[in-house]
């Protein structure tokens, strides 16, 4: 809803890639206000948006999925973004909606980000098929980790040029801008998710299979992404050790795109999307190796979804993306609710929102309630973690 970013894209090397009639901008932005994005611009541009969506959909032989990419903390991405999500559900109810959401870190400089995030969360819970939450802080940590590796100059820790996940190698743009490194990580996430749909492999994994396998209950669709490798070391180490290390890393906290601790929470389901020259035996060996240390919910003890794509990402010989539906997202949401509550208790900045036509205080309380009930659902599942749930008694057949 402001022009700067889109203009820059149109002037950059990717200008040919985007259809200029499919762009929608305004001038003044949303002022970091979810209500302005969702209600004001949402209503003003509803028809144009639907028209552009239809146009894009008509070009497709077979429309499989929508990707929505936005941040939660601001006004446009968060407010207008979730309005668009609702429109997608209305206009294209059968098409899968996968949302990549950048969640604000605790130290976020936008004061109203907790409001925006919680208001948006409710929309995500109700209208998205799958959400991949990404935290800026995790991206920063990963970037720092890589930079530290490259600059430390320790023997055996030299990174192969342009192989790191933040390098944007293989991309079109040249010079690095701020946030480029972090954004590259998210770009890699999306590349890996779509790799099996774009390239061949011995065990293909389509986008609609992601939602099918990883979402056991409709609202619990928040998937923790983790990417490995972050970089490839220049020295040649034994391939199978590198492979095994890659699998171990996928379950380490350093490689996750949100700050959470899946190993100490409960896995509902987990998907492993492997790219490159990795065979099914490598996959099996590693699953067997890692499985004992990962707590899975009682009714999904072998809950793994696996995909093998033969084509590795640029600059690497293989890579792994793990998507986990794990109750470890609960603390992130609890935290978000805390920050929201802190502001809401004091009614801080509320008037900016209530000013907007169509916005009412009930939106706030309902969004809070939605978040609380989501947290409760995760909590219930967590509670089963320590208990030994007996197998359900089988049907007995009369003879």
């Amino acid at each position: 809803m402001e022009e700067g970013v889109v203009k820059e894209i149109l002037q950059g090397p990717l200008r040919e890639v985007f259809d200029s009639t499919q762009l929608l901008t305004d001038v003044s932005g949303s002022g970091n206000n979810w209500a302005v994005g969702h209600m004001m611009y949402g209503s003003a541009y509803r028809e144009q948006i639907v028209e552009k969506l239809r146009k894009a959909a008509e070009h497709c032989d077979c429309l499989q999925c929508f990707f929505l990419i936005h941040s939660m903390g601001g006004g446009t991405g968060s407010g207008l973004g979730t309005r668009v999500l609702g429109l997608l559900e209305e206009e294209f109810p059968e098409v899968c909606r996968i949302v990549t959401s950048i969640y604000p870190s605790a130290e976020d400089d936008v004061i109203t980000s907790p409001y925006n995030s919680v208001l948006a969360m409710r929309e995500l819970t109700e209208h998205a098929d799958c959400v991949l939450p990404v935290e800026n802080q995790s991206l920063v940590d990963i970037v720092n980790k890589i930079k530290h590796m490259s600059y430390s100059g320790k023997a055996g820790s030299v990174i192969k040029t342009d192989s790191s996940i933040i390098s944007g190698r293989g991309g079109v743009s040249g010079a690095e801008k701020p946030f480029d490194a972090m954004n590259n990580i998210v770009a890699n996430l999306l590349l890996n998710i779509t790799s099996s749909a774009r390239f061949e492999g011995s065990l293909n994994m389509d986008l609609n299979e992601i939602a099918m396998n990883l979402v056991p209950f409709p609202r619990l669709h928040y998937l923790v992404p983790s990417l490995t490798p972050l970089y490839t070391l220049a020295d040649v180490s034994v391939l199978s050790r590198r492979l095994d290390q890659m699998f171990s890393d996928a379950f380490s906290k350093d490689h996750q795109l949100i700050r959470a601790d899946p190993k100490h929470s409960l896995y509902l389901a987990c998907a492993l999307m492997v790219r490159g020259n990795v065979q099914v035996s490598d996959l099996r060996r590693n699953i067997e190796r890692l499985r004992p240390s990962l707590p899975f919910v009682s009714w999904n003890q072998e809950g793994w979804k696996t995909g093998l794509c033969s084509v590795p990402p640029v600059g690497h010989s293989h890579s792994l993306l793990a998507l986990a539906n794990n109750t470890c997202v609960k603390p992130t949401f609890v935290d978000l609710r805390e920050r929201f509550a802190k502001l809401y208790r004091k009614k801080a900045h509320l008037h900016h929102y209530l000013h907007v036509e169509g916005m009412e205080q009930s939106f706030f309380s309902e969004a809070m309630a939605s978040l609380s009930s989501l947290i409760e659902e995760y909590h219930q599942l967590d509670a089963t973690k320590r208990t030994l749930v007996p197998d359900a008694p089988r049907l007995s057949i009369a003879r």
Partner: protein
Amino acid sequence: MSVVTVQLGQCGNQVGQELFDILCRDAQDGQRTPYCTASWERFFHQTTHGELVARAVLIDMEPKVVNQSRAKAERSGQWRYGDTSHFSQKQGSGNNWANGYCVHGPRHRAVVEDLVRREVERCDRLAGLMAMMSVAGGTGSGVGTFVTQCLRDIYPKSFILNHLTWPYGTGEVIVQNYNSVLTLANLYRLSDAILVHENDTVHRICSQLLNIKHISFSDVNRVIAHQLGSVLQPALTADSYGCYSRNPLGELVSALACHPEYKLLSVCTIPQMSSSSIAYSTFSWPGLLKHLRQMLISNTKMEEGIDWQVRPPAASERTRSLTGPSFNRSVANLLILRGKDVYSAETGGFEDPALYTSWLSPKEAFDVWKSPMPFNKYEKSATLVSNSQALLRPLDNMVGKAWNMFASRAYIHQYIKFGISEEDFLDSFTSLEQVVASYSQLS
């Protein structure tokens, strides 16, 4: 008489391509013999230029695998798939049986039936249909079940054999147990016989017998194709009067699947070794058959780690099930011997009444087919197709895991979205518990 194969989904198409490859090369080893002619007639259609075109239809809901299989066949230079004998869509079934069965199946019914009809019409005489698929995914399982139903409707008098690949126990698809249960329950009433390969078993064969270090799905598929090929290639049967049987599927079904409650067939082949070792090995029929018999009795799926302690019960114990839990009782067995000196092979060990249930005499329960032609470079090879308790434990595990998941209603909303109800799930569970009970009660 010819067999028309329908390859469904990624697994069905990948395994199918390896199967035709082996069938073609094996037949060509016996150039210009009656074996070769019979095999070609059975599986391939010859064009006016003498090219071999597989009697197969390739179906998938996304294009990559079908294209790959066709390209690979083309590259072999020996055979190919028909130019128009395939159908794919762009979307895939999302690992959802209901999506395959309720949406894609009906939507594309006319096209698929037409493709099969054309292949059938190219046959002088139809020996039967074979559908190849996995049970874990969405297309093979869901669309595959729907297509089997259609074929049953259109060809009520033809034999339909379903070849199923069961997934690794530790999971390839999270909802694999649901998809498997729904598939098996439905196929049980539609199919004449269900021939099963388990990825776990084949994987072990690859690692322990073939010594493959980095096992890929191609390796697994090739083993499956080898075993399946050894069942399907021409053989001389008791009823074929000195010629290669013209009714392979019919004879397979009548030998093994004589009772509607018992349709699950497992396969084991001996010997299996890396191609580099074959040249240095010699085999005797007594040795091979002894091992194979013990593999059957102890339910070991390969010739390593056989438990020689397991024995069938002595005659006096027959009426009470005093056998140890590891004894594998059979409903029926079919032994297929291929290679040198095949007529001298002594198969009496398989006629022991102790191996079988009381309601079938060994004469009815046991059959032998023979072929003097070596199969797939093995000088001598023996294949046992068995209707026994061999698949009981894997089936029971599959049903148990699916039931546990169902108890929590996890993922059910994904199926209901496409038209399957909880009732349908319950019906499938009931059918399979029946099958499990039937096989358990064999002891």
